[in-house]
């Protein structure tokens, strides 16, 4: 294909989404056709401060990628609330919700106005259903992430790893 078409496409939301998604590790290795479609079907949402993006215990149907703003991750156990930490731009959350209806393990609340790229499982899966190879690529990206996590977990704190031997092997390796 030669480049007789317009050299610089005008900026628009779709193109911005495209550039962001290309740099999210879970999607980075997918074919460009697929990334284009994901950029096409995802939506941007802005949440007001104090608004919850989702609550712990809810079933998640979409994943989030933070474009701008800050949010706080809150976990409640037996009635007591604990702030796990803050998240900001460039962070992906709830990616597993793209694979299955899973329970949210924490709540996410906006601290400042928080703008996210929201991708619904329904749309994501409709895409993978027509392209099994992409499903494989996506699963590999997820698995890589789990393996990295376990590796770090074991290396960082050997005592902790000893204590919870049950957790060793979550990556199934």
């Amino acid at each position, binding site marked *: 294909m030669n480049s007789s078409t317009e050299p610089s496409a005008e900026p*628009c939301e*779709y193109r911005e989404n495209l550039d962001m998604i290309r740099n999210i590790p879970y999607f980075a290795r997918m074919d460009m056709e697929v990334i284009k479609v994901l950029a*096409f*079907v995802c*939506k941007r949402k*802005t949440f007001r401060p104090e608004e919850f993006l989702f609550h712990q215990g809810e*079933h998640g149907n979409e994943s989030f990628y933070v474009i701008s703003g800050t949010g706080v991750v809150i976990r409640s156990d037996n009635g007591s609330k604990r702030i796990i930490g803050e998240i900001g731009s460039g962070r992906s959350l709830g990616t597993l919700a793209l694979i299955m*209806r899973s329970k949210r393990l924490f709540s996410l609340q906006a601290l400042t106005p928080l703008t996210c790229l929201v991708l619904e499982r329904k*749309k994501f899966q409709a895409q993978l259903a027509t392209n099994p190879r992409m499903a494989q690529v996506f699963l590999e990206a997820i698995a890589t992430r789990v393996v990295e996590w376990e590796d770090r977990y074991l290396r960082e704190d050997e005592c902790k790893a000893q204590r919870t031997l049950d957790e060793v092997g979550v990556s199934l390796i």
Partner: protein
Amino acid sequence: MRITQRPITSWIFYRNTRWQLLLLGVILVTVVARVFPLEMQKRIINEAIGLGLYDKLLLYCGLYLGAVLLASSLKYVINALQVYLGQKTLMHIREELYRHILSLPLSFFRQTQPGMVVSTLVGELASVAEFVGSALAVPAVNILTILAFAGYMFYLEPILAGLSFAIYPFELLVIPRLQKKTNQANRERVRLSRKLSGIIGETVTGIHEVHGNASYHIEGDKFKNKAGELYRANIRMSLYRYGVKVANNLFQNIGPFFLFLVGGYLTINGRFDLGALVAFLSAYEKVYDPWKELMDFYQLLQDSTIRYRQVMDYFDHAPEHALEPEGRSPHTLVGNISLRDVYYTVSGNIRILDRVSLDVQSGEQLALVGFSGSGKSSLALVIAQLYDYSAGNVLIDGHEVSGLTKSDMAANIGIVAQHPFIFSGTIRDNLLYSCVATPGMREEDLPDLDRTIEVIQQVGLFRDVLRFGTTTVLPRDTYPELEKRLVRVRHEFQNRFGTLLAEDVEFFDETRYLQYSSVAGNIIFGDPVDDSFAEDRLHANADFLKFLDREGLEQRMWQLGARIARETVDILGNLPRTPELFESSPIAMDDFEDYQELVRELASRDPSELNAEQRNRLLELALNFTPGIHKVVALPEDFQQAILKVRGRFKEWVKSEHIRAVVVSSESQYIHSQNILNNILFGKLKDESGGAQERVARSLIQLLIGEELLEKIVEIGLTFEVGSMGDRLSGGQRQKVALARAFLKAPPILILDEATSALDNASQTRIQNLLQTRWKNKATVISVVHRLDTLAGYDRVAVMKSGQIIEFGTYQELLERKGVLYELVNGTQR
């Protein structure tokens, strides 16, 4: 006899006897009308021409013409009757086969693709129809015709007739052999083309490697070799095929040679007259057509019998249960359930249920828990007769479940499946589905609106239906009173929530470009009374096109349309078309191919060089473009400003020329082209504002309660079309609909198979409370439970493992026992 065991021939006279006899009658007349002209030919030559009699010439020619006309019209009648008989029978076969298929056990459908059933019923049986239509007619008409012609020929001259038919045995000897060779050659050709396809497929898939190694010649040679073989096979087959044709032709044309030779000899000798010879020649030539038709019919007989048998054999299973009881009405049960040593074994001799015994009293509520694969779902479905147990007894009120009819079960059991199925139609149709299907249910016994609303409140579907209601576009002039009150709600909304929700709603502000309205909507900014001014029809309105031209906007619209088309086609071009993809697409799914074509044109041409129709398609795209929803291109600021200017001019133009076509939006008037929600908001919800829907819904409910409009809107919401297979509903909504339809039916036995798994926590709790209050002691409930915190509400809990019940008792008892349930609840067992 089961429909699948009926032979194909049984359909010939099935409900058709009278018509087939009529057909036979018509055929007899036709055959006579076909032979008659031959005799006329003979007489025309011998008596009229030979003796030079004009009146006889006219008489015989007239009779000849009459017979020919009669034969042709009757041929048409025969064909019409054939089609009628064939299609009528096809309809009967389809109806009966479909009923049969629906009654087949679930195990059959686990191995059958829906596509198989579709293609069978829609496509495969067509040749059977053709067969049934022609089963009597074709052999009768052709054999009789041949016999009649042959008889006439023997009557004219037996020796000559014998001679001319002597060719046929030769033909029967030669043609089939050639045909066989042709078929063989054809198979070879098909085999080779598959091979060739394989090679092409492999090479194209591995094109990277070909380019990397520059192995063009290797792959090229592979292709060349196979292509050469295919070339030879093609020629071989064609030669045989034309051989058959030529042989056929030869046999057909060699006949007259004998006739002229022998017939001519006889005529010269005076033993045969000239007229008879001409008639004989005609008769001989006319024998060929019926002969050919008989051959074709034989082929059809073969094809359709095989096809028919394949189809019928595929579906040749017995339904496991009778549909209706004989000699009694369906039982009315109270719901005492008792299982004794029940086994359920599936193929491969795998025991899903392994000697299960269980007693549940009428009105008791039993929870089934266990790991996945423990058999808890299967147990519930065995009780519901959806699975058939292999041994033991399942008794409901003392009746063996395997002996009950489907009607007995349907009258007494409500099932909510884990993935309930929703049929196309309205929400209300689906809510009443189980009630309508219940045997003996009369129209007036169906739940009324109040009851329906009560139940959708109970299952937590109320808000969803309310939302469907508010997204309805009210038909013009149907609800004048409601419209007035909605405008009141609009004012109230502005007063109480206007500032609070200003960020969530884009109000219809005449001074601003509306991001959530289409370009057309931005120009019109009002309520098109005249249909040709509707947003989606504007591009076809000739007056409007002139207006656009005057405003100098046409060019810019085409350019915008072209940009949208290019980008969208680039993204969606090669993908399978699914509704999910097209949700945020500016091009509708059905129009996509047209725009693909258009984009190809645009590669080499400017939009202004396209023809008028193509430019109009671009205009349509531009006019429907809505920046708030469609993100593929950005709408430049100066374009928006231009549209705003045009909005004012459009208003003036409409006022001066189309006074009644458009009513400009104003806060005091209901806008008929917008849905209820947009009317109340006097604007549109901003999609990008997180949580907006929730906030607006909350304020809306308050206002609607105040105006006493809540139920009215819900009633309208019940007419929401759920789409094919209910695809416009979410997973949670589908489960709620399924629960509501079971509750509306209010059966004595409720089987819930993880019936709340797709619901959020609050809804699950609501359903649980409902079971423990409203349904306590009213229905026997067997519930497969996936959330252990709901267990306390059940009368009894059965814990299952590997197809057996390993613990059974009240929740408290089992916790105190500190067994498997205790471990499950406390999460110590993985």
